[in-house]
């Protein structure tokens, strides 16, 4: 509540001349800010010749191809684009759901039964957040191969392991602030640990759930190197697919790639406008804990 008030208060201020100038200035900057995305959008309707002649020009009668590029992009690179969307979507949703359920339980247990082992796990989780992926990429992909975790189902486990650091850290930070009396009351009333967790602790943790979900979604959806190294080559997420199309030598169908870039941005933009409030709160919560 306090936050909302703080946001509303300055709105009522009278707009001085300086503030009006700033509004104009920021409008101009905003236009430049969205320009790159808009230019890609514009180019997705042009011919290849039109793009290489002038990427910043509006499509003219001879360079305009309509939705042609979207149609040719669908199966460009001999790989159906809808498959990459399904794959990305499955991995993101599955990975985030698995991380949320498992790490919240783990964090609660770690925080409430303060044994040495639990403390070691906790500090290792924090430590894992700083380690760059390049340090473990080879051994991780080999481990995943030997355990045959190189399918979209298996990679969920890798994501749980690699994303556990941030999630456990954020959840335990929140569990610390929950008064233990609530759980004691549940215990007196005869609820076991399972019931206490799912009936009482979980609902209280809802804000942290949303924050963790947002941060992990942003990470997994856009992740390139981890799925590229771990997934079997028959599965492609969106970033992997885009990289394949650009990295392949020889003639590249630029306009089809532009169309695919537009198509891969659309779900994110919808997601963003649908839960913008939560995303921004999630980012702030993640930063304050970090």
């Amino acid at each position, binding site marked *: 509540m306090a936050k909302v008030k703080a946001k509303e208060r300055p709105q009522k201020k009278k707009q001085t001349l300086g503030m009006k100038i700033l509004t104009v200035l920021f409008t101009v900057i905003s236009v430049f800010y969205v320009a790159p995305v808009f230019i890609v959008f514009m180019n997705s309707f042009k011919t290849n010749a039109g793009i290489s002649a002038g990427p910043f020009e509006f499509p003219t009668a001879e360079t305009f191809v309509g939705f042609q590029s979207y149609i040719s992009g669908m199966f460009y690179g001999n790989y159906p684009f809808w498959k990459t969307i399904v794959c990305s979507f499955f991995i993101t949703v599955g990975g985030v759901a698995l991380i949320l359920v498992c790490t919240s339980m783990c964090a609660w247990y770690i925080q409430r039964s303060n044994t040495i082992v639990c403390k070691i796990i906790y500090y290792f989780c924090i430590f894992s957040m700083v380690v760059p992926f390049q340090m473990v990429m080879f051994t991780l992909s080999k481990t995943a191969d030997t355990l045959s975790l190189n399918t979209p189902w298996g990679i969920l486990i890798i994501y749980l392991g690699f994303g556990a650091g941030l999630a456990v850290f954020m959840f335990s930070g929140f569990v610390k602030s929950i008064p233990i009396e609530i759980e004691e009351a549940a215990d007196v009333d005869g609820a076991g640990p399972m019931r206490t*967790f799912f009936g009482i602790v979980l609902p209280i943790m809802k804000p942290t759930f949303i924050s963790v979900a947002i941060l992990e979604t942003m990470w997994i959806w856009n992740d390139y190197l981890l799925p590229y190294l771990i997934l079997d080559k028959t599965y492609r997420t969106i970033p992997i697919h885009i990289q394949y199309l650009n990295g392949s030598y020889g003639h590249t169908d630029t306009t089809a790639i532009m169309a695919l870039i537009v198509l891969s941005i659309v779900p994110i933009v919808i997601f963003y406008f649908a839960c913008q409030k939560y995303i921004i709160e999630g980012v702030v919560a993640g930063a304050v804990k970090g």
Partner: protein
Amino acid sequence: MFGKGAASLPFLVKKERQMIMFKKRARKIYSLIFVLPTLAAFIIGFVYPFFNGIYLSFCKFKTTSNATFVGFDNYIQAFQNEGFLRSFWFTALFVVVSVILINLIAFFVAYVLTLGIRGSNVFRTIFFMPNLVGGIILGYIWQLIFNGILQNFGSNIELDATYGFWGLVILMCWQQAGYMMIIYIAGFQSVPADLYEAARIDGAGKKQVLTSVTLPMMMPSITICTFLTLTNSFKLFDQNLALTNGAPGVVSSSGTMVYQTEMMALNIYKTFYANQNSRGVGQAEGVIFFVLVVVIALAQLYFTRRKEVQQ
């Protein structure tokens, strides 16, 4: 930290209370249910690869099964690898420039947006948006833009390292400034209004308010943002791969190809996967990279945390 007698009693009581949910008898079963899934995945996904990686950095290997121990050989070779050294300096310069630029821009934008100008929420929405787009896609978007501009001068982003460097800086500013802005805005909003009032009554000017009230109160946000930008810039991979992929490559005096715009993460990746014989060196470089990130992150946290004021 505490005197032994004074601390032990309340500590015990607290511990006993925390145990209430997990009475000794049942604890084993519940630890299985609650901790095991995460722990098992964590060991598979992080702990084992991490230690195995450290071990392999002292080995010569092509796959994990045929590793032979060679001691510090890989590390010596890593420090003699021109491409790796070049990527280190390139990364260092990039980190310094981008951390400073991103934080200055984000701080300024957040300051303006908390003044209460019209359309603040719209601007905030727009500035944050690039963060949701993945690094690979961002790289290709900007490649199109830069090449579109540079083709008027008969050039290309892959032809000149200077273009590649500033291209990466612009890309990172464009992407990260919005994220940091969100954190700074939250920081500005958490400064209590009575502090400003007190400063005004004491006759502080605008500049003085900024340096003696706003900046000290904003130190926690500054710590977080420098930490995030520092580690993000250091570990940058996707954007680098998509935008220039290290090009241009220049043949050095000793005859090896040195890629001019390769950052450390990309260089390690290429050492690993481009040449099977240099995997041990690649792993050693990975360990060096890891140590570097940890040391720099800890140093940064230490120095900025010291400047924070206790509330």
